[in-house]
């Protein structure tokens, strides 16, 4: 049998002086001590502990999502470095080099496909990893900080994708980045088109967008900036944060569940390592097969004068793009993303529920799970709408509808509260129905009472009765609108649907579950809850009644 010789040979190699000088740990005797030495003595493996709790190894606990995200990051690094050998970040060459990769470089197409698809898979994996950690309560004490690092890593993953999108210099690149950076131009105070921007002396050539682009439009400087950000600056930061993230995972122990007496621990080598290898190989295989079967898209060469129709962002930003249909750029492009990031990072500090750590505990964490799931679902529903339901001119086309069907022009929009009111509901295109002196107190008062009411009601209200009452009142209201103002019933149903969601998630649930929180945590939570519900309500106002702004103060560009 040749196996015997191989065994002997292997032993000779492993025990040789050269081998032992590279891998620390003395003669291999395959004892628990040897295995521990393996982990501790290897720079790559020492991010692992020597022994790990058995429950942390369950596939159905972690799903390997963090590891898969990291594998995808590695695939991206390696393919990215290879792509850099054939890519020049200048307007004259960038597009041609991508064509060369597709047509003339050995395996160039595969590398580019793998890079593109891994990037998209990484976005999915990182979001899924975050959801998994949330549902198992993995962010709770003492892991608050690491959750925050994770949120930053998610943000940077998206930013890496965004910067990478410009590099092929095609139409998708040009317009995704034009729109994305124009949102930066709508930043309050710092952008030339944002609220108070003019008061701060912002112009097109000195605001935050100008810095980002290195010019007033997407051009040669932008390409170079995004190239450096994409290939050097951001990966460096991600790398540092990854080390921090892994270190804390290891130090805070792999599973968050409280210890049970006499709980069994097993050796990381080979129990965890072999799982990691399988996850890595499966992930790599998946990306490779996908990259063989499907080519990364490449549009026509960038043209600053021609916008594709419809023009869509990369899919994971399409939800944001859909929000931009309903809100002013500084709200949808700056405020809401900012709130999402800050809100996610605040979760561990406001959620002081000690239950549900290290397990999928639906019953013990109803409020947290409900709100988080609603937010996640909204994100993906918005993506679905933007990706599948928008056609030419960003009109609404159902997925089964042909984009060649002509569509009626969209109805004229109007505002609910604003200056120069016309006092006529539904009949004042582009004008306001009610004056600001009603609007501002109503909006402020509504917001404040919504903010505090759930906590001020000390006794838990009967949710079923409340819901029934709410639906009843809404139905009466809709009938009134139908009879009095001839509002179509369909519009009323939109209002009922979104209104009910906002009432249930924004009032009933907080009243039931978090009214006993301390004021600070309660208020922070409610601000984020109300912001989420506000998005829903604004969408219903637009979809049902063509309301452009609920409240508009044009003099300071404040439009809600």
């Amino acid at each position, binding site marked *: 049998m040749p*196996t015997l010789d191989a065994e002997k040979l*292997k032993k000779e*190699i*492993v025990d040789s002086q050269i081998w032992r000088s590279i*891998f620390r740990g003395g003669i*291999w005797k*395959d004892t628990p001590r040897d*295995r521990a030495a*393996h982990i501790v003595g*290897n720079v*790559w*493996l020492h*991010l*692992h502990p020597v022994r790990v709790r058995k429950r942390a190894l369950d596939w159905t606990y972690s799903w390997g999502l963090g*590891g898969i995200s*990291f*594998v995808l990051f*590695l*695939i991206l690094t*390696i*393919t990215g470095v*290879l792509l850099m*050998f*054939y890519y020049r970040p200048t307007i004259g060459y960038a597009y041609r080099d991508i064509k*060369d990769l597709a047509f*003339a*470089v*050995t*395996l*160039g197409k595969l*590398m580019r496909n*793998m890079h593109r698809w891994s990037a998209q898979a990484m976005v999915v994996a990182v979001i899924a990893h975050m959801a998994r950690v949330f549902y198992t309560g993995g962010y709770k004490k003492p892991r608050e900080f690491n959750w925050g690092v994770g949120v930053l890593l998610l943000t940077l993953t998206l930013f890496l994708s965004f910067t990478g999108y410009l590099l092929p210099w095609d139409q998708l690149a040009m317009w995704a980045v034009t729109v994305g950076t124009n949102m930066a131009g709508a930043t309050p105070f710092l952008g030339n088109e944002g609220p108070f921007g003019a008061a701060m002396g912002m112009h097109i050539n000195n605001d935050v967008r100008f810095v980002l682009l290195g010019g007033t439009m997407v051009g040669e400087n932008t390409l170079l900036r995004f190239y450096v950000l994409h290939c050097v600056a951001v990966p460096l930061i991600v790398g540092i944060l990854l080390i921090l993230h*892994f270190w804390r995972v290891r130090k805070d122990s792999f599973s968050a569940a409280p210890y049970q007496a006499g709980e069994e621990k*097993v050796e990381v*080598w*080979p*129990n965890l*390592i*072999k799982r*990691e*290898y399988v*996850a*890595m190989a499966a992930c*790599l295989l998946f990306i490779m097969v996908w990259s063989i079967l499907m080519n990364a898209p490449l549009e026509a060469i960038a043209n600053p004068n021609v916008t594709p129709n419809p023009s869509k962002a990369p899919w994971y930003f399409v939800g944001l793009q859909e929000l931009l249909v309903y809100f002013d750029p500084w709200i949808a492009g700056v405020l809401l993303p900012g709130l999402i990031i800050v809100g996610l990072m605040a979760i561990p500090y406001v959620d002081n529920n000690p239950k549900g750590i290290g397990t999928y505990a639906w019953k013990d964490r109803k409020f947290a799970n409900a709100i988080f799931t609603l937010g996640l679902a909204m994100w993906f529903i918005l993506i679905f709408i933007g990706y599948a339901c928008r056609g030419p001119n960003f009109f609404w086309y159902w997925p089964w509808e042909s984009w060649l069907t002509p569509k009626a022009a969209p109805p004229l929009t109007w505002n609910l509260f604003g200056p120069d009111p016309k006092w006529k509901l539904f009949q004042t295109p582009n004008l306001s129905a009610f004056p600001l002196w009603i609007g501002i107190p109503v909006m402020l008062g509504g917001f404040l009472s919504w903010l505090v009411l759930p906590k001020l009601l000390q006794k838990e209200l009967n949710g079923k009765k409340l819901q029934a009452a709410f639906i009843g009142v809404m139905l009466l209201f809709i009938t009134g609108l139908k009879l009095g103002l001839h509002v179509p019933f369909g519009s009323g149903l939109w209002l009922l649907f979104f209104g009910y969601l906002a009432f249930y998630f924004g009032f009933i649930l907080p009243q039931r579950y978090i009214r006993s929180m301390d004021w600070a945590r309660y208020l922070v939570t409610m601000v984020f809850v109300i912001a989420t519900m506000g998005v829903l309500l604004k969408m219903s106002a637009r979809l049902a009644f063509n309301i452009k702004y609920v409240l508009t103060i044009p003099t300071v560009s404040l439009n809600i």
Partner: protein
Amino acid sequence: MTEPNTPSSQPNPSQTPQSVQNSPKPAAAAPKSGVSRGEFLWIGWAAMVAFVGGFAAATARFFFPNVIYEPSQKFNAGPLKQYDFGVNTQWLNEERVWVIRNTKGFYVLWARCTHLGCTPNWFGDQHRFKCPCHGSNYTIEGDVIAGPAPRPLWRCKIDVNSKGELIVDKAVLQDLPGLREKVPFFVEYT
């Protein structure tokens, strides 16, 4: 494109066979349905080595570009009949060669001093090439007659197409007496 040591997720290939075999359930070497566990695992390791090796080889291949954006090393120097006897300098600026016609035919010298790469000049009155950098002198055949140059000037591969035009290929060179006077570095023409 993965490398053998992907941090944290992959064991070192040559260290692991033993340890995987020695996982908590000790691997029984007993043959099962004709194939022993050891041989079965061996396929996995071989596949892994093949994959990593294949990808490394492919990556090496990746670094050899299939197209380059340099001017073509080949160029069409026009009909032979247009050339006069002696050193023709008309291609010096564009292609850095001298087309030389003697009584027997044509050869083409690459205008690069074999000492350190400067471009020599042709002095018809002295009938020699002189390099401005370190003073190497060459005969019209390209042989060194003065200065530090270690070897004669290179001759380019030349060919005549069916229209009687001279096709020069600067990628193929020869300077050895005996070889350089023969096809494909010399074209007979009278």
